[in-house]
């Protein structure tokens, strides 16, 4: 694989995503952790651009970074008394780290071509190993998503259901977070 600009961008955005994610779980200051989450989400948006999903990249920036992360920041500031705590991990963190390292190792063995030699069994045989064999995207993805969301043969019913879910979740959030006790 030659080092094309796409590969360079992929490694940069991957480093942003994983580095930000690692900082999210290791930062002692929860406010900094939320800011690093924004960095990680931004890296993911870059990966979406590389995968020809510009709509999802825009939604990632607008909804995740612009709304969800800000919502979490508000929650942090409303519970600010506990922001500067020194102990951020509980006692079981070594076991959790070990379990996640083992899980990651197993996933590496299963997903990568390197693991096929070790396992002697090609679990990822049906996956394309060469990225250049992927078919080209010859249409405008944003328009196709809009069509899929609004046509009967597409996803109009799931779209309405998820709208209902979001509305009910927001109403439920208001009810749960209300100040008065009379519910």
């Amino acid at each position: 694989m030659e080092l094309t600009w796409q590969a360079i961008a992929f490694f940069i955005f991957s480093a942003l995503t994983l580095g930000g994610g690692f900082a999210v779980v290791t930062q002692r200051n929860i406010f900094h952790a939320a800011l690093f989450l924004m960095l990680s989400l931004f890296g993911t948006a870059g990966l979406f651009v590389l995968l020809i999903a510009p709509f999802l990249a825009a939604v990632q920036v607008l909804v995740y970074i612009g709304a969800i992360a800000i919502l979490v920041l508000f929650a942090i500031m409303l519970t600010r008394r506990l922001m500067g705590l020194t102990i951020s991990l509980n006692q079981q963190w070594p076991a959790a780290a070990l379990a996640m390292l083992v899980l990651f190792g197993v996933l590496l063995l299963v997903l990568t071509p390197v693991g096929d030699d070790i396992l002697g069994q090609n679990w990822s045989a049906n996956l394309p190993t060469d990225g250049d064999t992927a078919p080209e995207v010859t249409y405008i993805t944003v328009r196709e998503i809009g069509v899929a969301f609004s046509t009967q043969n597409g996803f109009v019913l799931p779209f309405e259901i998820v709208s209902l879910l979001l509305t009910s979740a927001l109403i439920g959030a208001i009810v749960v977070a209300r100040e008065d006790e009379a519910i």
Partner: protein
Amino acid sequence: MVPLWMYLVVSAALFCIGAFGVLARRNAIAILLSIELMLNAANINLVAFWRYMNPTVINGQVFAAFVFAVAAAEAAVGVALILSIYRNRQTVMVEDVNILKW
């Protein structure tokens, strides 16, 4: 283009980091952040498989958009629950919230 397994490895690493955060962090808000990381890992997988396996139809991206909506709902309810707990117990540390524990 980079091969598909690189995206899958990034996604797997992000998921493992998020799962570690859920298991190991004490702050409930940090656990919420870690859940967002895991949802993002799932989204990277969805879009990567769409791009490499079946980009002729848009279904993979549509599914990822649904994940966005569900993640937004989850974050709103999670933050509301944490604020409610904080108001009642004056803490957001998960080991201090044990009223449902026998």
